[in-house]
């Protein structure tokens, strides 16, 4: 079973890094440079199991994207994980209240991201079971 992830970050470098980690874990991935581009991917019909979302991005930021996804019942099964350098407690609470499932603070290691996905039962090997 293919498990899909959409990596949303305005930094190409960070998209490459996160995509690499998720690819190694067995995800099929796509990338978006900001929230609106990510919404366009979802509207296309490419349905991810997971979105990793940066907070500070041009055009549409990560929090706006979370609100937009949660406002659409068609996307209610998508797991949303913030991956961001915004590490103030208030920001974390806002993201989780808006509907994000997990929060990974940059800088992070591949193991830290893997552990968060394991908590959500989202590792491809687990989903396949």
């Amino acid at each position: 079973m293919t498990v899909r992830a959409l990596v949303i970050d305005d930094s190409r470098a960070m998209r490459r890094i996160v995509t690499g980690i998720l690819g190694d874990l067995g995800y099929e991935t796509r990338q978006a440079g900001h929230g609106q581009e990510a919404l366009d991917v979802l509207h296309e019909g490419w349905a991810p199991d997971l979105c990793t979302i940066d907070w500070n991005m041009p055009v549409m930021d990560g929090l706006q994207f979370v609100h937009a996804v949660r406002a659409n019942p068609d996307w209610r099964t998508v797991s949303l994980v913030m991956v961001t350098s915004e590490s103030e407690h208030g920001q974390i609470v806002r993201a989780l209240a808006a509907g994000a499932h997990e929060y990974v603070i940059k800088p992070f290691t591949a193991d830290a991201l893997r552990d968060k996905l394991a908590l959500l039962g989202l590792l491809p090997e687990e989903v396949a079971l």
Partner: protein
Amino acid sequence: MTHVTGTGPRRRASDRSPSITTLIDTATVQEITEQAWLALVGEDEVLVPLPAPVPADALSAWVEILGPWNGSVVLTCGRDTAHELTRALLGEHAPEVLEDEDVDDALGELANVVGGNVKAVLPGPSVLGLPEVGVTPPPGHEADTCRVDVLWRGSPLTVRVQSVPAERENEVPL
């Protein structure tokens, strides 16, 4: 990017933001930078705290922080160092030929991660701007700057957490 221009209310002179040196020390800035290096650049990458002049062709990446404290976090290094950093950061995902855009992006992301973690230890709530990259970083308050000088793989690199210069402080939106 959060701009400091606009038509909203401005700070009065009496509303000056606190001095950065009362909010964060160089040891904390160094620790934040080291954590970013270990996680993003590589587990074995060491930053040696030694001051050395940055080359004349230096490139900077910075993020602005607006809130109870106003200023910017600026990362500066030579262009060759910036290229090497980009390769290290991207690792096996690095393209064969690095474009300037790749280097700007990688240096900007490092500044973003360091800046975000600096912001977390400052009084909030604050807004973190999008990273910018160039040869001329925003001016800082020289006497109110927390500066860390390190060597990475023998090349100099500086991280400055600098307050907005006093003469520009009344331009900062509330």
